[in-house]
Structure formats: C-alpha cells, structure tokens
C-alpha cells in the first residue's frame, strides 16, 4: 500500500514539474520593438451589468468606432506614433465592483490611465488608482466625487492623480441656467432627485448657486425604485413648477414624463439630466405624444452655437457616429459619449504630448493641472484651484436639446465658467 502512495506522490510531483517546464517553454521570447505605433492601454471601469448597464452598454458602438477613427492617425510624441486600446471592465456601479475593476485594469491589464468613468464608486476606485500613480479621469456629480470643501471625498493632497474630465455637477448647474435661458418666462424650476443625493454636497452647492442667480426653484425627492410619481407631480403642480428637471436614472425620468402627461399636466416641461440614451425606448415607454417636447442634455458637437469645437473633432465624431450606425444597422442616436470618454482621452493624449512621455504620470499630471485642452466638447482650461484644491476640472458646454417630431433639436447652451 505504502509503495502505491509513493508512486502516486512521485507521479504528481513529476506532472507538476513537467507542467511548469512546459509553461516556461511556451513563453515566447520578447519580440523586437516594432517600428509601428505603440499601443497605450486605457482602462474604463464601467457598468456593464445591473440596472445602470444601459448607460454602459449603449455607447459601446460609438466608443469602438471613435477609437477606430482616432487610431487611424493616433498621436505622436516626437517621431513615435501611439495608438490607444480601450479595456473595459464591469464595475457593476458598486464600490466593491469599482475597486475590483480598477485592480484588474491596473495590475492585470497594465493600465496607467483610467478614463470615461461615470459610475458612483469614485472613492473606491480613487483609493486604488492614487497609490498606484494611475491617472483617473472621471466625472463629478456622484455625491463623493466632489471636493472636500463641498463635503465630498476628493482631496487634492491625497488624490493627486485624479482629473475631473466631465464636471457633471457643474454641468447640471449650468443646465439649469440653460433651461432658464430657453424659457425666460418660466414660473418656477422644479428639481427632482433621489434621496440618495439629498443633503449631499452637490445639492447644497447647486441651491446656493441658483439662489445667488435669482432662479426660482422648488425641490422634491423620491426613494430609489419609485415608479409612481403622481404624488410628486401633484406637489410640483401645486408649487407652480412649469419645468421639472429630473436627476434620476432613465426609468424614473420616463415614469415621471409619462405620468405627468396622463395626469393632465401636459404643459409641464420635463428635462432629463443626461442625454437621451435611446429615443425609441423613450417613445415606447413614455408615449410619442408625452415625449414630444422632452428636454435632455445634448452633445452633438456639430450643433453647438456658443462653444467652438475644433472641426477635426467634429469630423471625427461624425465619422464615428456613421460607423456606429453601420455596425448597429440603424441610425445611431446616442450622442452622450461624445462628451465623455473621447474628451477624457484627448485630455490625456494632449497632456502626454505636452509632458513628452506616456509613462511618467507625475509629469503628465503636471501638464494637466491648469492646462488648456482642445477636445470633442471644446477648448477649456482646467480650473478649480481654489474650490478643488487643484486646477483639475474641465469645462462643459451645458447644452440642451428638445424633442421635436421625435428627434433631438438644439434648444439652448450655457457654457460653464471656470471654477475659482
């Protein structure tokens, strides 16, 4: 019996040793440096599952197309051309998922840059990226993705590798101004958000800014998961709100827009705090009649009137939209991504060019702070030295569209002013 144990044990050890040897032999020798473009990995932690997944999945055709267009020329530092490879990892829109996604991208996929981030797990991801000296280009707007001076989690000293490439907090504020610009005879602006944000730093700042600007407003809150907005719609109507700006997810916006129409408040305009993800979906859920006149964020840079965009980037985006339409076999309507990932990537690329390096993230961050960058949503200088403790906040056109005959049509625009 003991002899059999010895045979089995020796066999197992031999198999393990042979296996290790085989794996070692299978490792290809390092290939000589190609003379063609070098590929830089940029990671994106994004919601690809869960209830926020539509926001993560729908832009995929455009994203892929945009990188296809971008990589035709790539970007140059000296004589070397670089291309970009986007690596997406599902972060499930959770803190745990975000940290895991960041770790995978940084330590598994060797990403020195994370960009296009919009999910609500800023702190979790920043806690991974900063110690690793990985530049993290994200958006503001989530309750913690705001500076400590606003009771958010961002601290310039402990998070020196964070860039706010999409200042959505400020965009929301300036969208309010754009609404008031579009409807100067408005009675009162209704603001609706989920209780997750109630009392959060973003809302405190927003209310202060609106009050100082003399905007008449009234706010209501709903618990996440609410599907019946009749009581809230009635309250807005009783407060004489003729425009309601909904800062919820798609489902809540659609439910509100549909129910207010059915309750007879057809003159109550409803604005969505983000771009329309899929016009067909809104029409199917809200109803074509109720959806007519709906207002949303708008990023078709060929339509901007107050923000000048480099024609090269307009052409790039239009080409990407065309490719995306060909891939999906139908008109590609979602323009939201124009303002997010491509704009983030162009900030990074131009910073690398200014710094003369694709590896030294300290030098690249130095180029980003206070720098001026030309992107798919215009040319902006990073601001926020005082409010954020570091000039790492990009700008935004804060452009809105209105649905006319089922299509998005430019409505108004209130470009963001630099933050102190």
């Amino acid at each position, binding site marked *: 019996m003991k002899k059999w144990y010895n045979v089995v044990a020796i066999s197992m050890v031999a198999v393990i040793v042979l296996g290790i040897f085989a794996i070692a032999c299978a490792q290809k020798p390092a290939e000589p440096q190609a003379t063609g473009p070098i590929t830089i990995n940029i990671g994106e932690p994004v919601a690809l599952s869960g209830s926020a997944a539509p926001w993560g999945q729908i832009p995929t055709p455009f994203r892929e197309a945009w990188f296809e267009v971008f990589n035709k020329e790539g970007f140059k530092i000296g004589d070397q051309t670089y291309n970009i490879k986007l690596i997406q990892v599902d972060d499930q829109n959770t803190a745990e998922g975000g940290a895991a996604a960041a770790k995978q991208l940084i330590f598994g996929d060797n990403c020195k840059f994370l960009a296009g981030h919009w999910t609500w797990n800023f702190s979790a991801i920043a806690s991974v990226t900063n110690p690793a000296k990985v530049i993290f280009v994200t958006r503001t707007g989530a309750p913690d993705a705001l500076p400590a001076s606003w009771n958010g989690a961002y601290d310039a000293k402990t998070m020196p590798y964070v860039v706010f490439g999409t200042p959505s907090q400020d965009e929301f504020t300036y969208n309010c101004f754009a609404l008031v610009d579009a409807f100067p005879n408005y009675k009162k602006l209704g603001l609706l958000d989920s209780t997750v944000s109630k009392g959060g730093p973003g809302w405190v700042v927003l209310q202060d800014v609106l009050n100082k600007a003399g905007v008449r407003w009234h706010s209501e809150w709903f618990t996440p998961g609410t599907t019946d907005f009749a009581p809230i719609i009635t309250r807005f109507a009783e407060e004489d709100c003729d425009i309601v700006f909904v800062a919820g997810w798609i489902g809540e916006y659609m439910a509100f827009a549909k129910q207010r129409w*059915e309750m007879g408040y057809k003159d109550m305009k409803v604005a969505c705090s983000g771009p329309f993800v899929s016009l067909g979906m809104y029409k199917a*859920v809200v*109803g074509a009649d109720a959806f007519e006149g709906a207002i949303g964020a708008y990023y078709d840079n060929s339509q901007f009137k107050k923000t000048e965009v480099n024609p090269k980037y307009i052409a790039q985006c239009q080409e990407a939209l065309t490719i995306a339409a060909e891939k999906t076999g139908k008109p590609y309507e979602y323009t939201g991504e124009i303002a997010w990932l491509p704009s983030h990537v162009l900030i990074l690329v131009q910073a690398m060019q200014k710094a003369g390096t694709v590896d030294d993230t300290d030098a690249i961050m130095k180029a980003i702070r206070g720098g001026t960058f030309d992107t798919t949503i215009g040319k902006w200088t990073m601001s926020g030295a005082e409010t954020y403790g570091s000039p790492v906040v990009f700008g935004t056109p804060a452009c809105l569209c209105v649905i006319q005959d089922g299509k998005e049509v430019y409505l108004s625009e209130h470009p963001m002013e630099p933050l102190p």
Partner: protein
Amino acid sequence: MPPAGIWVDGLVQSCIYMTMAFGMVLVFSILGILNWAHGQFYMLGAFVVYYAITAAGIPFPISLLVSGVVVGGLGMLVEKFVIERLTAPGYGMLYVTVATLALIFFFEGAAGMAFGLMDKGLATVLPGVLDVGSFSVSYQKIAVVIFTLVIMVIMYVVLNRTKVGLAIRAAAQEPVAASLYGISVGRVSLIVMGIGCALAAMAGGIMGPVHSVNPFMGRIPMIMSLLAIIIGGLGSLTGAIVGGIILGLLNSVIAYKISYFSEVVLFVLVILVLLIRPQGLFGAPAK
C-alpha cells in the same frame, strides 16, 4: 385633503398590491411558505405580455391570459421541482426561503440575459386619458381597476362555487382531513402555486403599459404585497384584499403629504400592526 387624482392613483396601486397579495396568501395557505420570488413572476408576466404584443401581435387581453398560463405553468414547475422537494421531511422552512430568495436573482439575471436590461415600453397599448373634472386618468389605469375587479370576481367564484375551490379551501383548513376525503393535497398545492403565480404574472402584465418593463420591476411590488398581507393578516384572503387597499391608498396619500417619508411611515405602520395585532386585521390569532 388630497386632490381626487391622488385617490385615483392610490386606488390603482391598491389593485396591484391586492392582486399580488391575494396570490401570495393563496400559496401560503396551502404550501405554508412565502414565495419570495413572487415579484419575479410579476416581472416575467410583464415580459410575456410585452413579447406577445410586440413580437406575436396578440391582442392585449389575450396576452394577459397567455402570461397567466405561461408563468403559472412556470410556477407549477418551481413548486414541483424545487419547493416540493425542500418541504419534504428532513428539510425545513429555511431551505425553501433560501431557495425562493435565490430564485429572485436567478430570474432577474436570466431575464436580463434573455431580454436585455433596457426598459421596454407598451405605451401604445390603451393610449389616451379620460378627463374627469379637475383631473385626468389614463385608460391604462382604468384597465388596471377593471382587471382587478374581474379577477376578484373570478377568484370568488372559483374558490366558493367550484369543486377545485372547495378542495383548495379544505386543504387550506385541514390538509390531513382533506386527504382522507380523497383530496390530493400535492395536486392542490400545484394548482394553487400555478394560480398564485398566474395572478402575479397578470398583475405584471396589466402594469406593463402603465410603467415600463425591465428585469428589476418586481422588487417593489413584492415588498408592498408582503406589507399588505402583514397588515391584512397572513393566511387571510380577505385580509390580502383589505391590506392591499389600505396600503395603496395610504402610500399615495402619505407620499402626497410628506413626499419620500411615505415609505418610512408605511414600515412603521407595519411594525405597529405586528406589535399590537400580529395576526393582522383578519388573520387568526396564533394558537
């Protein structure tokens, strides 16, 4: 006093909670279990209606019946291959609870994979509104109320005027005695599970045009119907109806008065009911 539109809205909510709660209580009365995946049958029913209308062109009322049959059948399979096995000697309530909780995530994940995560709409089903004085009510919401009345009448007739109903009531009251009289309690369990899930499915189907259809739409109705049966009394069909009515109207009125605090108030109410009258308004006191 809240405006009329709030009461109408509350009535519509009541109808759905009532229908869901009725199905849950029916299952509880015979199987002795709370089906935590009840909300997911609601969700699956909505998807069946959606695809019956958009893909197969089946008229809405027939689609509702189809969803009841299909999802009711699915419920019977769950009862046969999952619940029945876990209620056998050697197992216990905990196993069934865990299994039905797991089914929540299974059905949601499966629906997400099969149907996608985007909201789907049925706004073209019964479009338009009826203007009634100072408020309007959509024809879709009117359909919800009519549907509920019809379902309640049908259930009353089935349970009180048919042999199947008699068997169900007998098995609910005294399962041992019922089996001695030749009633197959196992078969009754299967039928009741089918009916309960069918009710949930048709509730989801009738609400599909009112809201939107997505894999996560069953969670809130499940929780609210659970609150309804606690208020009304676990095991009481009358309690399920009354509890649903109270909950729907209260939810709407309180939300109008104090906005998002409404759910806090409702849960406090449920706790008070449990403390003062744990059997609910119509439930039998614990022996």
